[in-house]
């Protein structure tokens, strides 16, 4: 047998051997090879030690009420109205990017609407300000005209006397 460590394709043979997952014939071949190969025997010794260390790690027992809690959650899900169920499904689907994207779309849409409404409001405002501008101009012109009329009247009242003296 060629040394399994010499080829990438066969290195898993040693892992499987130390995990005791090889069939009898292949396990015998690897075992026989390891007896004469110092590299493989060192590899197997280290791997067996890791295997034993990992074996010592026992997780804590599962809570007694695990099933009861799960069935409660299932029942609660079944009682939810369809839109809540859809929301839960979306959350369960882990669609986290959807929320920032939705917020971005809302901001853009809001900005567009504001801009659009602003455009429309500017026009009436402009019109209004135009109207008010016209009104201000007309009032000024009216004042000016009234002043002119008053001045003409004053001149008119002064003029006959003047002309009488001349005559």
């Amino acid at each position, binding site marked *: 047998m060629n040394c399994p460590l010499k080829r990438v394709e066969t290195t898993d043979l040693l892992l499987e051997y130390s995990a005791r997952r090889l069939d009898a014939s292949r396990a015998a071949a690897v075992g026989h090879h390891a007896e004469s190969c110092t590299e493989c025997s060192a590899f197997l010794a*280290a791997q067996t030690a*890791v*295997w034993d*260390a990992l074996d*010592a790690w026992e997780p804590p027992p599962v809570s007694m009420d695990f099933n009861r809690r799960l069935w409660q959650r299932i029942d609660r899900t079944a009682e939810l109205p369809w839109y809540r169920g859809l929301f839960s499904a979306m959350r369960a689907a882990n669609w986290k990017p959807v929320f920032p994207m939705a917020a971005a779309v809302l901001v853009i849409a809001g900005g567009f609407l504001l801009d659009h409404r602003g455009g429309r409001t500017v026009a009436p405002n402009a019109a209004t300000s135009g109207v008010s501008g016209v009104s201000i101009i007309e009032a000024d012109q009216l004042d000016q005209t009234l002043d002119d009329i008053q001045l003409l009247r004053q001149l008119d009242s002064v003029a006959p006397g003047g002309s009488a003296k001349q005559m």
Partner: protein
Amino acid sequence: MVQGVNTITATTAALDGDAQLMLRVREGDEPSFGVLLEKYRNPVIRFVYRMVQDQAISEELGQEVFLRVYRSRATYEPTAKFTTWLFRIATHLALNWLRDGKSERGHQRLDDEGDGEMPVREVADRRPSVEQRMVYQTRLQEVRDAIALLPEKQRAAVLMHKYEEMEYAQIAQVLECSESAVKSLVFRAYETLRVRLAHMTRV
């Protein structure tokens, strides 16, 4: 038509028993879900626990795994082994939890958990001495730390290989990568563990 029916029958016959149970769940048979829950509750929670190293979180994620299985019953299609599908859900949830950085909070609670207790079977008939318990807990902590320091995918691959005794092909399906990639992940993970736990071999 007959050939089509034969193909379906052959496919159904080739399904593993768990997939057949899940198909019954799809048809509304809740007791079949109960059977699957009883069979895979402990393996799933043990796997998630070793991934996240927090008992409360592992049970919470375990609940989420089975809740998703139940919710997906209507659309379930037995395209792979049931355990492949189940562990793919469990792995995704555990990896998402780790990637969200929620593990920072979890590690603070490690010492409060009861899993540092030395198994009674280790000491035959008598209770372990204080010294034996301390040595055991130190070694256990080293093993947990060594696993926790592995990159997430290596960790998932090595846990499925070691504790769930999965074949490379099935791990590849769970992790959605090639079989050779899994071999590489597992080999590198064990290589790292051999270095990190080397001092334990000399004890």
